[in-house]
């Protein structure tokens, strides 16, 4: 089993948070995992991204130049990471902020996800990132939603636990959209 993904977007869209959750969920499922966030000065100016690698073998590089999967939460991320994605890979596009016609990639499968709308439906439009994580998990099968929920419980500080239910709803909404196309 081997999987890698680059998750990218504006700072504040919570991409590092879901990358970390994904990695922790994979550990819970007994995989080896690396999580590599951008750091330092690159964070100024508002873009953020992280790379998660999940495998059953030892993981060499935690930095991936051509990912199997990309999640792009805004336009600059699409421009940067879309074309790097492997031809046989998957690009999950935040269609709430990116127009479908702007996505011109030849090769990887493109999956459009109206994250903000779905998050709103789940009860909080700021949880677009959890919608994406749910969709990613469902679409690739790399981890289960249960593991992600478990990861949330183990990594969030006690005082944030009351937010877990709505986060789970957003996760599930994302997964549902993958299953039902709506």
């Amino acid at each position: 089993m081997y999987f890698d993904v680059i998750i990218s977007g504006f700072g504040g869209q919570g991409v590092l948070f879901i990358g970390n959750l994904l990695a922790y969920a994979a550990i819970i499922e007994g995989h080896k995992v690396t999580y590599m966030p951008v750091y330092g000065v690159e964070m100024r100016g508002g873009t953020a991204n992280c790379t998660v690698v999940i495998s059953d073998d030892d993981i060499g590089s935690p930095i991936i130049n051509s990912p199997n999967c990309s999640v792009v939460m805004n336009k600059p991320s699409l421009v940067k990471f879309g074309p790097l994605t492997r031809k046989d890979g998957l690009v999950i596009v935040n269609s709430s902020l990116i127009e479908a016609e702007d996505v011109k990639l030849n090769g990887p499968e493109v999956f459009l996800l109206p994250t903000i709308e779905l998050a709103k439906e789940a009860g909080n439009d700021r949880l677009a990132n959890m919608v994406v994580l749910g969709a990613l998990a469902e679409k690739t099968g790399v981890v289960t939603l249960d593991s992600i929920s478990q990861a949330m419980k183990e990594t969030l500080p006690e005082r944030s636990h009351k937010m877990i239910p709505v986060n789970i709803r957003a996760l599930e909404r994302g997964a549902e959209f993958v299953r039902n196309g709506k």
Partner: protein
Amino acid sequence: MSVPAEKLKAKLVFTEERCKGCGICVHACPRKLIAISDRLNNQGYPVAELTAPEKCNGCAICAEMCPDVVIEVWK
């Protein structure tokens, strides 16, 4: 997003791509004529706009206070 110059006391030009929606101009304007719109620029920021151009007398305080030199003022 310039406002037609005729019959206005002053003209404000916002270079929207440089606006970061910080809202400093909103608070700085003595007449409260500026607001953050719903419009996102390509950097992902919601941009500031002059809500009532006809009331602006071009005091340029917004421009002075804007950290990103977004606003130019004619009078």
